[in-house]
């Protein structure tokens, strides 16, 4: 039964992730809150599940001509460096602590996103 939920939640997160809208921020809480995964294992599953999904999504996006490869690679080079640091740091926290930080992170992201959208709407109006 768990497996069916995993697939369903995977699809839900995947749709958003494929659009580049933060599937992980949906999949991780689904796994922890509903299926009772620990924060760390949910994070690991999200990271690893992202790999096959994104390869296919990238093929589709690049066929549509949406990807700016140079910019993407530039960010990724710096991102890889700090991601290893971030992942090693996460090892030092237990899952309970991590999940509280994750909750705060989600809250901040949600608020920032709404603020960002309001700013954008105003800029578009000015144009």
């Amino acid at each position, binding site marked *: 039964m768990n497996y069916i939920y*995993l*697939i369903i939640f*995977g*699809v*839900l997160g*995947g*749709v958003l*992730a*494929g659009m*580049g*809208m*933060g*599937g*992980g*921020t*949906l999949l991780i*809480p689904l*796994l922890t*809150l509903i299926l009772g995964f620990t924060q*760390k*294992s*949910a*994070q690991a*599953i999200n*990271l*690893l*599940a*992202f790999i096959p999904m*994104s390869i*296919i999504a*990238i093929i*589709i996006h690049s066929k*549509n001509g*949406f990807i700016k*490869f140079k*910019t*993407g690679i530039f*960010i*990724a080079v*710096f*991102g*890889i460096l*700090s*991601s290893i*640091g*971030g*992942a*090693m*740091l*996460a090892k030092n926290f237990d899952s309970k602590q991590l*999940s509280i930080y994750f909750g705060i*992170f*989600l809250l901040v*992201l*949600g*608020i920032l*996103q*709404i603020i960002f*959208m309001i700013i954008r709407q105003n800029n578009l109006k000015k*144009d």
Partner: protein
Amino acid sequence: MKENKTKYRFNFLVQLGKDGRFLNKKYIVANCEKLPTKKVESFTISTILILMFGGLLVGFLNGFFGGGGGMIVVPLLIWIGLTDKQAHATAVFTILPISVASSIVYFLNNNVVLDNLAFASLGFTIGGIFGALLLKKLNNNVIRILFSLIMIGVGIKIILS
């Protein structure tokens, strides 16, 4: 790189009429209004700095929280002049190598149960294909507002529980 200094705002109907694809430059110039705007993919110093520090932040968040880096990349890319759809697609592309790096660390720390991973990945990939195909057609704003609200709600729930 000269043509990159101008951003073209596409007429959505024109796009749809041509199968929704970005076609050759001549076609775009002929059919779209030109808007003067910030530099696009020309790497000025400010762009480089934004991408550098943005990259470091995104990588750290991706490693520490196991996701969510993409939510930071998208506004950054829009800030430096990409369109919405370009930003979302490029975010997926950017997060892949970063996730691979983080995954290796998580995997070595034994946080993964393989059969759970297999089923979640299966679902995630199926969903991802839908998502990638949908990006071309969808107006993302509605989803974004909904998802922001969900994130705030879920965030509060996690903090309280």
